[in-house]
């Protein structure tokens, strides 16, 4: 159990702030939340800064720079519960695609003065640096799951974050399967639920922004999809927001390798 008025912090590492904004998107629930939690740090909403300690710290973003790698260790030490939120914090995010590339090379191709940029060779999830008590997946996270997390914290129960595929939510909504009925590649079967099957509901395939589910059978789905299209095309599906998740790494790595071969960088001497 947490104290009556838990001290909550929201901080970010390498990310776009979209997940933090989900808290503001709760709208109707926002005032009740502020009434029950002490938001002692939340840069998107308040100029208050805190050094902690936190009952609960929501961390957005991947660990991408040496400062962030240090900071996350300090933050962990000051947090009773640390919850990583969003694809960047839980899987490394889209920026983790650089983990398969030659970092200094890549940096030089983007920034005019590469020497000013200090970054790690990899962008990786918070859990690769410190223990994480819970994860909210997604790009961005689902408002309902955030609310459930906060509610569960208040009541003292385990949050209901189902370990099921996107397909269950899709079918509960009554959708027709876009993969079977329209041949649209969809990663729903290997992706954990939480989004409410948003993409398939609007007729497009799931691109796994919530990351892999438990027992994700990537090899089987990959093989099935590759029967109707090129392996490269299928590999690219996995090279998205959660590419660095272990079950997706193999196809994602191939996709990045192919992209590097086919699209040499502008400063590549061989180009």
């Amino acid at each position, binding site marked *: *159990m947490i104290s009556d008025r838990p001290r909550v912090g929201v901080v970010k590492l390498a990310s776009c702030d979209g997940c933090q904004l989900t808290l503001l998107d709760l709208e109707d*629930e926002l005032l*009740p*939340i502020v009434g*029950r939690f002490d938001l002692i740090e939340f840069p998107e909403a308040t100029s208050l800064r805190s050094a902690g300690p936190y009952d609960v710290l929501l961390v957005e973003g991947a660990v991408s720079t040496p400062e962030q790698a240090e900071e996350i260790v300090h933050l962990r030490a000051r947090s009773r519960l640390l919850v990583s939120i969003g694809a960047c914090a839980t899987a490394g995010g889209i920026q983790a695609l650089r983990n398969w590339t030659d970092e200094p090379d890549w940096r030089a191709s983007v920034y005019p003065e590469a020497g000013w940029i200090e970054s790690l060779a990899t962008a990786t999830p918070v859990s690769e640096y410190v223990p994480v008590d819970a994860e909210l997946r997604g790009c961005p996270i689902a408002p309902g799951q955030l609310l459930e997390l*906060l*509610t569960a914290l*208040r*009541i*003292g*129960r*385990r949050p*209901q974050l*189902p*370990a*099921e*595929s996107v*397909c*269950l939510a899709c*079918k*509960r*909504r*009554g959708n*027709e*399967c876009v*993969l*079977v*009925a329209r*041949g649209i590649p*969809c990663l*729903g*079967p*290997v992706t954990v639920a939480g989004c409410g099957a948003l993409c398939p509901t609007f007729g497009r395939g799931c691109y796994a922004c919530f990351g892999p*589910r*438990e*027992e994700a*059978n990537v*090899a*089987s*789905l990959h*093989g*099935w999809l590759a029967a109707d299209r090129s392996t490269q095309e299928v590999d690219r599906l996995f090279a998205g927001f959660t590419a660095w998740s272990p079950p997706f790494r193999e196809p994602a790595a191939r996709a990045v390798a192919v992209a590097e071969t086919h699209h040499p960088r502008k400063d590549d001497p061989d180009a």
Partner: protein
Amino acid sequence: MVTDAGFLPRADLDRLIGLLREGGRTVIGPTLDDGALVYAEIGSADDLPTGWTDDAAPGRYRLVRDEGQRTFGLGPPPQGLKRFTFPSRAPLAVAERTAEGAVTFTAAVPDPPRLAFLGVRPCEVAALLVQDRVLAGGPFVDEDYRARRQASLVVAVACTRSGSTCFCASMGTGPEVTAGHDLAMTELDDGFVVSAGSRAGEQLLARLALPAVTPDQHATATAAVAGARAAQGRQVVTTGLRDRLMDQLDHPRWAEVAERCLACANCTMVCPTCFCTSTALDSDLDGAATRMERRWDSCFTGDFARVAGGNFRPRRQDRYRQWLTHKFATWVDQFDTFGCVGCGRCITWCPVGIDVREELAAIAPPYEELPTATPVVAGSTSAYSTAVVRSVTPETADTSTLALVPGDDALLAARPGQFVMVEQPGFPPLPISVSRVADGALWLTIRAAGPATTATIALRPGAQLGLRGPLGRGWDIQRAVGRDVVIVAGGIGLAPVRPIIDTVLRDREKFRHVILAYGARTPADRLYVDEMADWADRGMVVTEIVDRAGPEWLGRVGIVTHLLDQRDFHDRPATAFVVGPERMMEATVATLAERGVPRERIFVSLERHMQCGIGLCGHCQMGPFFICRDGPCFAVSELGDLFGREGI
């Protein structure tokens, strides 16, 4: 009674729809919505998908134009009528707690829409009959389902075409309509042969006042349906299928199919008979009010068979085996019918095209008979009553015994081995064994294994919570009368056997030697220490052993089977009751059997993930049993070779 058939000209289909719509009834039929075939409201015959058919194959489905201009030319829609009779989400109850701690439960009252299902395929009608057995035909009933079924009419249409994934002919559910309908139709070029299958159907048919079917029309209709049957052939051999399948629990194909299976649950979601559900909680921020909702779940999800400490079916191969053996084998034990109607949806809508017909053919023959269990309790999924905590007695550092005064006296009738569902608003319900019934209170010994159990033992006297039960089949203590009684408990497993001890000591002279063998982790983890001397005084041999101890412990150290080393029951008829972690029970059962206690008289209590407690939610299934309803107490012989098997 079936009246004579009439002929409904195609142009008159709207007359039928009009009749069905009378009295505010909504007609639900196949229709195209944004390029997808769905069951939805039908205003007139124009809404029906005339001129369309489908091309279904494993993992592939396309709608195609049909030159034949049939109104009902499409096979079963992607999702069946289950959406209307057993919705994917349905309210169960609202649990509330006032600031003063008063707890109330308000069960949802079914409010079914009046529906008429039009154009229902025979496999779909058969699926309704299967779900009728599962959800409304047993000792316990899903009230929402029953209400919805009673408020609906079924107008079925025989199939005159078979899709490539159809196998109703093998399962005995089609292509003709044989039962479960109010009206049945067979579509011809210019209209429909219509017959009634119920009183309501007869009345409709009478009001339609149709011309009699001509011998030609009759012959054409019969031939068309026979053609659909012939096109299917026999794809699944059902003779002995239950036994053939249950004998192959170790077949290497389970691992092989798991290489392909995504465990995505699509097969179970589109299956018209799958009924597994979970209770989802929606609490306000203070936990003052929690809406409890029944939601479709699946034996393929990661949480489905999980308990604190582990998952009984962690691997895809465990889950696939669970699903397939349930559909084609254990369903027969439970409901006297297959759980499959041959609609082919699980084949068509499997994202990687796994075909149950092929899997069944690959995983095959011989057999062994498993016994059935008799359910013995009463209850419904939302029938919580409020109970008051009378006292909380700490037993060990993490375990306490709560004495609860139930609001409903029926709970005090709990028999040894039965359990109750304990519900604190906002928390998932907990199945807890009754450890004693005394002084108008139900005693529950609970170990803090997670948030809900921790919160429960943190309650103070006077606090309120919800109880439902008593549930499950208890111990068959009758089988111990006149015999030696051996009670073996490990850890918290002493709680569910304490009512046996109470019963035996109350009528001590009815039994011969009574032995308790109790194993605990350490001396500090032992339960009911203060009572043990009293038990010994009243004529029971109490022996204890711990896994490890400090030098202050003068008792035995080792494993619980060591307490049985010196015993031999070959010449002394004995009955044994065993409760503890599954591994401990396996070792104990092996030791007892070796020492002459027959497996028919060794009883165990099994732990599984229980949510509903009455065999309706599916979580706790083990082979032919729902542990909550058919157990949790079993004779080891009843379990056959399921006992101790991994991933069941």
